[in-house]
């Protein structure tokens, strides 16, 4: 093939990136439609409408790929309709799936802890075991064959985790729904709303031609909407972290600190970003004296927000709060079982019987290595700061797939920011970026 022909094909691919992305979205939506058809009971009009719309829309997206469409104009609309179908599917699942449908101890424990908080008790000082009884899960059968193991996190002595093991934000977030008395005892709406808001926000910050990408990011690795209905609560920290990235990219570091503190108050994963962000602020300014105000401006509000949410519990029983928040690292009694997609596989695949302390030491060393690499390659590496939680946790003795899956939305926001593709105020962020090279800005002004 001649080079001319090759370049023509390359040009066509480049020109049709948006159509390619919406074609991929159509395929993913087809998979979701098939899943909805399989999991929803057939005896409700809402289910029928949802399944028909999901299939019709996925096929329409496939048709669109062989149609001449101005995705620059309609990209956001197409993504919004897809999100609308996801909302409809969510309502259908909330109304028609056999409930309670909580598939994890995370959701069980945090909703029960919210109940205790409303009653004036400190959930960090209480056993979470009664949460299972509240949903008629037989707590005397935890070790018997046939028990649904998804409800429990086993420890190596055969017992199960009964301690609340998340920061207080993951508990307090359930209070509004509880106080309103909607949907008890499952609290699934609280789990799913942040995920739907996350998808909407990602679409909002993405240029129209790329508007299929946010949906691919949140549906392809794992359907985050359906997962949240199964009890996964990672939407709690991912949404504020993505907002943090956008605010950070706009140099609104104080506001970014507030949302970062909120993310850290929900779950532990965003904590791992802190040293990398601290280095970023330091490297941008070149010396400690100049970095100090920048650190204060970002980490100050973050600490205040984290403190406001967690201090009441930490002050009430500091040891119980510390034990709860650091359960994965240091729980009373036996450690949790080794489990995960990273180095933990060495143990579970029986390559090497490695104890928990080994994984802890290696994870700390690996985090330092990543920080060193970050510094060596800075500034090229700077946006990697938002993705490191999943990388670091690969070395932990527990590295659940959610650690990797839920870093995809922050990675996508960082990708948009890195390539100056954030769509804000109706224009590419590139046109607003104060750090853009002056000659590049001048070129664009001339072009305009």
């Amino acid at each position, binding site marked *: 093939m001649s080079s001319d022909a090759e370049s023509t094909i390359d040009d066509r691919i480049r020109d049709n990136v948006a159509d390619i992305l919406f074609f991929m979205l159509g395929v993913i939506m087809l998979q979701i439609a098939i899943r909805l058809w399989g999991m929803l009971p057939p005896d409700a009009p809402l289910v029928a409408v949802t399944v028909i719309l999901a299939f019709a829309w996925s096929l329409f997206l496939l048709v669109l790929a062989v149609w001449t469409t101005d995705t620059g104009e309609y990209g956001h609309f197409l993504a919004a309709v897809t999100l609308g179908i996801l909302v409809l599917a969510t309502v259908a699942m909330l109304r028609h799936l056999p409930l309670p449908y909580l598939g994890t101890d995370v959701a069980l424990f945090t909703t029960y802890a919210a109940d205790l908080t409303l009653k004036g008790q400190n959930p960090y000082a209480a056993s979470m075991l009664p949460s299972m009884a509240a949903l008629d899960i037989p707590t005397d059968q935890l070790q018997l*064959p046939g028990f649904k193991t998804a409800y429990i996190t086993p420890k190596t002595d055969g017992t199960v985790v009964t301690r609340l093991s998340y920061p207080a934000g993951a508990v307090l977030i359930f209070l509004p729904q509880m106080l309103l008395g909607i949907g008890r005892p499952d609290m699934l709406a609280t789990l799913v709303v942040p995920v739907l808001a996350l998808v909407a926000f990602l679409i909002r910050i993405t240029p129209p031609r790329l508007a299929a990408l946010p949906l691919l990011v949140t549906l392809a690795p794992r359907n985050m909407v359906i997962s949240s209905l199964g009890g996964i609560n990672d939407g709690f920290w991912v949404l504020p972290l993505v907002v943090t990235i956008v605010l950070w990219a706009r140099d609104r570091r104080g506001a970014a600190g507030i949302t970062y503190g909120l993310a850290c108050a929900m779950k532990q994963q965003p904590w791992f970003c802190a040293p990398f962000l601290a280095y970023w602020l330091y490297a941008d300014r070149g010396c400690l004296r100049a970095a100090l105000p920048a650190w204060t401006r970002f980490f100050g509000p973050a600490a205040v927000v984290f403190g406001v949410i967690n201090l009441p519990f930490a002050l009430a029983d500091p040891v119980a709060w510390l034990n709860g928040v650091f359960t994965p690292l240091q729980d009373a009694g036996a450690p949790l*079982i080794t489990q995960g997609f990273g180095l933990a596989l060495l143990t579970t695949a029986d390559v090497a019987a490695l104890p928990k302390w080994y994984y802890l030491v290696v994870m700390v060393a690996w985090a330092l290595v990543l920080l060193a690499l970050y510094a060596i390659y800075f500034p090229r590496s700077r946006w990697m700061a938002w993705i490191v939680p999943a990388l670091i946790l690969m070395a932990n003795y527990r590295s659940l797939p959610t650690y990797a899956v839920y870093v995809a939305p922050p990675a996508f926001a960082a990708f948009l920011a890195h390539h100056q593709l954030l769509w804000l105020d109706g224009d590419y962020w590139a046109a607003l970026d104060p750090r853009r090279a002056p000659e590049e800005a001048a070129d664009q002004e001339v072009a305009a």
Partner: protein
Amino acid sequence: MSGDGPEITPHTKASLVLTIFIVFAGVGAVIAHQQTESPVKIDKAEVGPLELRENASVAAVYRVNLTVTNHADSPVTVGVWTWDQERHGYAFWPVDGGHPNGTVTLAPGETRELTARALLTRNALNPGRPASVVLMTPDGIQRTATTVRTPRNSTYTPNGTEGGAA
């Protein structure tokens, strides 16, 4: 470049850092593995017969029979675990006649037959498929593992009872 020597590139620095880490983690893994290997060895392991079919497509409960020996000079307490494909982790099963918490303590040099009823999921369900079995001390520090196969002569009837030879 400021000195007389060759410039150290970012790639060189990164390679150095990664090499040190790999050596550190590798040597540490060897040392940790040696300290972790359990003195309780599995002499013989087998699965069967079928106890209960939990779900036609997901799981069934089998009896796991183990013959184990404590090669240490002191008593060792262990629990029986099997690989749970559904959760991608090990699940604990109480040993028949063991302690109330399901573990069992072996005297120095003691050989004993252990039986535990285990829910073996998916891969382990089909006759002849392997299932991973692990003995682990309650602190999770010492473990030994083996692979067993579900019986080939077990078939299942629609009502969940065990059928004849396949």
